[in-house]
């Protein structure tokens, strides 16, 4: 008997299954740690200590989480419209350009709270612009968006390197990066939030863009589940034929979904560029766009789930740094290993446990 069409209660689908998937991913990571000759439990406790053991650790965790919320939302918005946007990485990279140009132009003249909204728009616009070409190719010419967005990540990287090396670099400096923004181009840290809980933020670059991310998450929720546009996007994502029957314009909906997705990815740049390093650097995205895929999958494409799984990945990133510092044998790339496993089990193998759970559940229900 096939079990795929048997429906399970929400607490299993949205609670138990993701947790099981996560546990398996961690168990296998533990095996890797053990193979290297370190203690998996030791690594786990270091992970938690590093990520949550101090105000500074939490600050870093939330700093990373901020980026992941944006990219996770970016991936999710596209997925709801049935589009798999693998290009968040490149869109965020270009978003950094938009955000940096705004900061460079305004930081001398206005305070941060004036720069910030303009930078949000700038980052969003550039991100959206970078998404618009694959979006157009999908909407009008039917080019597979997965492939085109991958291509655009590489094209974007080449473009950004060119700009940073030849145009934006500070003459005489070695590193391909822009000048440091003045205060008017830097986002303030959220030290006071930490102080509320009696902790110290220290040097952690946890900043105002976290709040922007939360607001963005709220708007994504509103968009997807409460607006007409969101309804149309979900219809298209769930059934393209039903969407055409319902008179939902394919090209327009694809374009809007991808532009929003690109804009969200672009806004991610605010966090590292204006919130942390105060300059645009080469490769500043550092894979956060890809992490967004994992975050969105883990969070079942729902903003609340995305916030939780972004924080989880924040813990992973910060705690992973801590592990690699304390256990020199384990490099930080352990994070990539765990990340890959989480994507594998929460994404590609998400239903591996389902048949077994269905059987258990049905036995249980009969009794």
């Amino acid at each position, binding site marked *: 008997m096939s079990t*795929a069409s048997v429906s399970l209660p929400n607490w299993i689908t949205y609670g138990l299954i993701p947790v099981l998937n996560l546990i398996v991913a961690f168990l296998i990571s533990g095996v890797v740690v053990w193979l290297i000759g370190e203690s998996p439990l030791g690594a786990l406790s270091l992970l938690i200590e590093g990520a949550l053991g101090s105000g500074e650790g939490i600050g870093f965790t939330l700093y990373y989480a901020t980026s992941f919320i944006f990219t996770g939302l970016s991936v999710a918005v596209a997925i709801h419209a049935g589009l798999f946007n693998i290009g968040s990485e490149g869109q965020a990279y270009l978003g950094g350009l938009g955000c940096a140009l705004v900061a460079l132009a305004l930081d001398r003249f206005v305070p941060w709270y004036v720069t910030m909204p303009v930078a949000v728009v700038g980052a969003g616009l550039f991100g959206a612009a970078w998404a618009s070409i694959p979006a157009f190719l999908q909407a009008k010419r039917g080019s597979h968006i997965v*492939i085109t967005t991958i291509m*655009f990540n590489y094209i974007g990287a080449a473009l950004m390197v060119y700009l940073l090396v030849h145009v934006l670099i500070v003459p005489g400096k070695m590193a391909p990066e822009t000048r440091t923004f003045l205060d008017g181009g830097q986002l303030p840290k959220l030290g006071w939030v930490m102080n509320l809980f009696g902790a110290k933020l220290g040097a952690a670059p946890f900043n105002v863009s976290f709040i922007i991310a939360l607001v963005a998450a709220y708007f994504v929720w509103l968009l997807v589940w409460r607006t007409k546009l969101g309804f149309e996007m979900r219809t298209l994502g769930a059934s393209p034929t039903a969407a055409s029957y319902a008179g939902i314009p394919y090209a327009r909906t694809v374009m809007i979904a991808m532009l929003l997705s690109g804009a969200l990815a672009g806004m991610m740049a605010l966090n590292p560029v204006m919130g942390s390093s105060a300059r645009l650097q080469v490769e500043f995205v550092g894979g956060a766009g890809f992490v967004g895929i994992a975050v969105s999958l883990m969070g079942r494409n729902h903003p609340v789930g995305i916030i939780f799984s972004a924080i989880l990945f924040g813990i992973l990133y910060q705690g992973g740094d801590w592990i690699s510092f304390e256990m020199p044998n384990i490099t930080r790339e352990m994070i990539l290993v765990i990340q*890959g496993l989480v994507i594998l089990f929460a994404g*590609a*193998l998400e239903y591996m446990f389902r048949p077994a759970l269905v059987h258990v559940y049905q036995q249980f229900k009969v009794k």
Partner: protein
Amino acid sequence: MDYYDILINVLSSTIRLSIPLIFTALAGLFSERAGVFDIGLEGKMLGAAFAAACVAYITDSAWLGLVAGILCSVSLSLVHGFASITNRGNQIISGVAINFFIAGITIVLGQAWFGQGGRTPQLSPASRFSPITLPGADAIREVAIIGPLYSNVISGNNILTYLAFLAVPLSWWILYRTRFGLRLRAVGENPGAVDTAGISVSWLRYRAVMCAGVLCGFSGTYLAIAQSAAFIKDMSAGKGYIALAALVFAKWKPVPVMFACLLFGFLDALANFMQGKQVPLIGAVPVQIFQALPYILTCILLAGFIGVATPPKAGGVPYTKER
């Protein structure tokens, strides 16, 4: 240097740079023609490179390195198969996962074992595939036109290079002249037809992804122990994606795949060669243009401006008969 020498140099560079692309794109060909999308090519190549370098280093044998590379890559194919064939998971997600996992694990293990920043130690000549001088290469080197072509471009490559060019007609022959190939192409178009013909869709697709694994094993091995003399972190550096682009560019056909890979390899060689040189009227061309060109060309192709690229119909869709 006259122009012919330049051409010869760029061509021999093109060959060296195209080989990993050819193996990898052929790998993608087998997988995707069977209806399994594979963006994990990058990861498989990288994993194979790592395994090949480690084993070649330990055993001092290039051939054992090749075997290890293939085994590693095939096991990753099996993971991809388990996720996307057996568990009907999303093939793209599975590929992304494999890419991440390998990007991380190779560095983690490499650093833990060798402590060289994720690199493996330099390999001795015995543990590498070294260039082979074809008969007569030295004798006719001085002959005009064909001399340099034969002795610098055709001769003087390692065995994997020749295998790559052999793999192209072989792949064609397998796909179009054997039972396995017929079934493989069918399962990528309509798995139902294969299933009702009494052939196991899963097993067929597993065999296809294993073929892909073997070919990626070759490409990874080439990177680590033929082209270079060690594994270096991220040494695939996006070649898996370029190969994917070449596959699309070649419309999922073996011989065009070779030409697409040669084209993309040529662009790369040209980028190296043109670096810092002045082009009349334009000035110095930024290398980034050459780096981006394969991707741009592929997008233009996908947009349908250079013919239409229709992927295998059942590609990316897990085969379900019972909902």
